[in-house]
């Protein structure tokens, strides 16, 4: 490892408190498993990660940065931890208006459809496709492997476009069963 490289992740205000609460859980794997140096710059409100002499793996820095970013976006620490443990997990973000230009109530209804009553629909999609979804107003973040992200994205887009949840369930069930058969 050459010169010390550094990454910075900005923390919005709403995630400040969760960060403080989960700080132990965040920095422990970064420091112990990835052998990096991490700190939270209070002035700039950034999480800074730096390589040091003990760092063995070059990709560790990117992994750590992704991990912190995932947490900042809204994922749980345990879920975001999967990014460190598995190589082939990705994080995808898109907006509801990317799929269909919606405004006002329509937008709200779309978001409501995605979430379902008590988060039921979202949880269903998460469970069937083995991903994690964060629904932040009009922004959607999906964490998982490539194929699963695709499945979840299709389901969410269908919901945005107006399909009833039962239909979406049927579709994702079919796709998931096919994927499971393949493996």
């Amino acid at each position, binding site marked *: 490892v050459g010169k010390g490289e550094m990454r910075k992740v900005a923390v919005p205000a709403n995630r400040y408190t969760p960060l403080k609460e989960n700080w132990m859980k965040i920095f422990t794997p970064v420091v112990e498993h990835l052998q990096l140096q991490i700190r939270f710059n209070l002035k700039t409100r950034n999480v800074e990660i730096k390589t040091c002499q003990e760092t063995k793996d070059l990709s560790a820095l990117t992994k750590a940065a992704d991990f912190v970013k995932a947490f900042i976006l809204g994922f*749980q620490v*345990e*879920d975001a*931890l*999967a990014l460190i*443990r*598995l190589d082939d*997990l990705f994080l995808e973000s898109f907006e509801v208006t990317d799929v269909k230009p919606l405004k006002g109530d329509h937008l709200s209804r779309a978001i409501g459809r995605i979430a*379902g*009553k*008590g*988060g*039921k*629909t979202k*949880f*269903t999609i*998460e*469970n*069937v496709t*083995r*991903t*994690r979804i964060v629904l932040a107003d009009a922004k959607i973040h999906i*964490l*998982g*492997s490539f194929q699963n992200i695709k499945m979840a994205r299709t389901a969410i887009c269908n919901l945005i476009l107006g399909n009833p949840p039962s239909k979406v*369930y049927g579709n994702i*069930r079919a796709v*998931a*069963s096919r994927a499971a058969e393949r*493996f």
Partner: protein
Amino acid sequence: LFSVQDGLATDFRALTKILYDLNKALGSNVVRGGPLKELVIENFDEEQIWQQLELQNNAVLDFFKKSIARDAKDEDLCLLSDQEEDGSDAETSSDLELEDSVMEAETEQKNIYTKGKAKEKQSKLREGTMQKYSDEDSDIDFDIEALEQQTKTAKETTLKKMGKKSIVDDKFFKLSDMEAFLEHAEKENREGEEDINYFEDIISADEEEESEEAKVKTIKSSRDLTYKDFFDPIDDNDDVVANDVEDDQVEEADGAVEEQNEESMSEVEDMNEMIMENTRSKEASKKVTFSLPDDSETEDITDTLLEKGMDPSEIKSSFEKRQEKMSKKIKSLEEELLEEKPWQLKGEVTGQKRPENSLLEETVLFDHAVRMAPVITEETTFQLEDIIKQRILDEAWDDVVPKEKPKEEAFEYKKRITLDHEKSKLSLAEIYEQEYMKLHQQKTEEEENPEHKEIQEMMDSLFLKLDALCNFHFTPKPPVPEVKIVSNLPAISMEEVAPVAVSDAALLAPEEIKEKNKAGDVKTDAEKTPTDKKRDRRKKKLRKRMKRREKEKRQKLLEKMKPEQGTKLSKKAAAAKLKRLTKEGKASLLKDEGKDKVLKSSQAFFSQLQDQVKMQIKEANKLKKKQKQQKAVSVHKLKL
């Protein structure tokens, strides 16, 4: 009549003894064997005397056999005429040939008997004849191979002797010789095909010869060879050239034989024979000829000799000949190189540049890009037919198996992947971890022995029973629920916030409970369109029609079958019923007197009713009028 004549017997015995002793006394040492010097008869049985005689006789018989065989081959005696009668044509022809050779050999034999050659001829002939006579008993089974060899060897000796003149003959060429040579060459080829080991035959022949003959031969060793052994004396001048020609021609054909012969020089035993043969084959050639591997050389030389008609006395040395040949070759090669090449060597040749249909004569090689179609021969068809027959016998048809699409019910399909509407308790990392473990554990699971599983189960049940029997504080295991109940909960229960007890309960859709109506939604009469109404009416009428028809059919059937029961609901039954009711007082019968026309028809009834009402109204009006009249004050009265 038959009595033992003792006197004669004793006389005979004495006579035999005298004969025997005389014979022995004369002392002919020719006969080998016969150990007894005199015949003893005193006090000897007839059998014993006979045995003594037998001893002598056996020896004598052997001797006589041999001598007869030998003497039969003698020149003066000729028993060949007997053989000619039987046997095949080949045999007869060969016999003739052999006879000829024998005759000719005879004439020559005396001339050249002293020389070693004759011995070989004689040996060969004797071998031939001996072989023949050895097969006297079996006339037909004649060893043609051996005979051919004999004829070949005989031919070699008699090539010179066949002196038939023809027109074509000249100093160098004799037709008869050529023919003889050709036949000889043919035989050589045939023999070559049969792969006869010349050495073996020759050896055997010699051995036989040696075994049969009692004579001692003069076998020369290789050291004692002289010029005489190799070459004929320098006397014959006339047939030298002819001999040369013959030699060379024979040499060509016998190239193989000669080589073999030369190779066998190493063998000391048969050295002489080989050399003799060589000399014979060369037939008194004066010059030294090296049979080089390139036999064509000698051929060419002879050809050139013939062509140029050179004086054969101007004989060139072999080196000179070779040089000539080489130069000729060089010349021809040079000419070839300077000439224009043939079309085959010219690279890409179009059709115009080569003669017509010249490719047909050439064997052309080219790559086949496509696999050739199989050649249909009789064999292939037979094979196919065999396969077909066998298949028919086995009844192993290649019928197409109809594929069935697996029909999965929606019910089961939904059950396969259950939807969990709750937030998953495991984190993503753990989920993937579990997946990974599952993948890798599948291998270990397969390795588990099913027998082990069985054993484990049996042991568990056994221990459970034992525990039940012996353990003081035994608590039985909770019963394992075997039945899985699927509850058809209403949708509203699923919407509840409180956790549902049965997580994987399947919600049945309304369609799964009751089949949907094909026609669609149910409509009230107000919603129905005229077409709907008409449709309904039609359906209703149809239903009614069918029902009525069915009823009539049943009635008819019933009437036919049981006529009494058929009149169940007839008029009589109805009247009887009515009577009964009126008697009881439940129903009152209105008599029809004719007066009451009113009750018969509704028109009458209503008209009567109308009249009644009118009457009432009239009366009422009248009353009213009267009242009014009373009330009405007249003007006259009020006139003041």
